[in-house]
């Protein structure tokens, strides 16, 4: 089930600090669990989250299995200019999701 919820203001004043909330559907399988037969369930996590603002990286999160399922990450960035905020999540088993949101800066 793929799903991403991003909360970012549509517009902001130049220089304003905006808060960005991100929520993505992912089990974040730790690799430490055992299934009913006793076999270890293989690790399957999102390892990296990157936010770029008109192509420039402004935030990065390197994640380990201790991040809860359906990772929720809230961070801030300065509204510098109008354009596009891009969000990318990558992880085990070729997991890769990219989303973007426009931002208008006055």
């Amino acid at each position, binding site marked *: 089930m793929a*799903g*991403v919820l991003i909360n970012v203001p549509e517009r902001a004043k130049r220089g304003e600090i905006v808060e960005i909330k991100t929520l993505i559907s992912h*089990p974040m399988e730790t690799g430490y669990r055992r299934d009913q037969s006793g076999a270890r369930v293989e690790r399957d996590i999102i390892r990296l989250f990157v936010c770029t603002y008109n192509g420039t990286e402004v935030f990065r999160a390197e994640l380990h299995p201790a991040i809860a*399922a359906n990772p929720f990450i809230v961070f801030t960035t300065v509204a510098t200019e109008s354009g596009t905020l891009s969000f990318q999540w990558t992880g085990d088993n070729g997991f890769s999701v990219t989303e973007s949101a426009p931002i208008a800066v006055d």
Partner: protein
Amino acid sequence: MGAPASAAASPWRVVRAAVGVIIVMTASAFAGEIPRAERRSGYDLMGPQTRAMQDDDTANPAMLWVLEGEGLWNRKIGAAGSACADCHRDAGTTMKGVAARYPAFDTARGRPITLEQRINTCRVERQQVPALAYESPQLLSLTAFVARQSRGLPIDLPVDARTQPFLDAGRATFFRRQGQLDLSCSQCHDDHWGKELAGNVIPQAHPTGYPLYRLEWQSVGSLERRLRNCLVGIRAEPYEFGAPELVDLELYLMSRAAGMKMDAPAVRP
């Protein structure tokens, strides 16, 4: 920074609580219902952080399922290429209040059915596609999306001559001692709500928030899944998903919570 209070510092606290609960229970012959004015949602008994998780739609993990459900609502499927939206249009309007009156009587089956069963009936009979498995991501997403449209509305189950026998059966299940622990739902949820069981506060068991994101599951799940967890907890054989015993119990629980506001999709520990 002082030493953290370890949960293991007092192992006997947990055992004492469990044993204490048993002792009290064998003494009482019949458990009483909660007076209407004293009914409280599980939301009120949660910690502030969990409540904050539910309150913010941009932070509530269950909203991922609602989002998925919205997509499924609009997706054309089956040989006829029909979507829920083709008949039911805008769910915000047409589904308002629906979850608040389920389980509802189904004339064809001659008994009440759950919202999940209603969705599957539509799929099989109207859209000509197979039913979705219980607890499948798709069924949970559709149910969460529909239930979301009743948020803030009071639970309002019409009870009539047709549904009364099933309501009575559900009530009987709620008050019946079951399992190796020989406990009834009522003993915990009517008599001992608010007290702690193995580190969690016992709620009154009002299903105002289903389907909900249970932190223990790390996923959205249905009321039936939660009821099966309870049955396992008292060491009783859990009824199968969709079993009449579970549907009747859900009917009773919703009726018992009549007038309380829906808060689906909720977050609970």
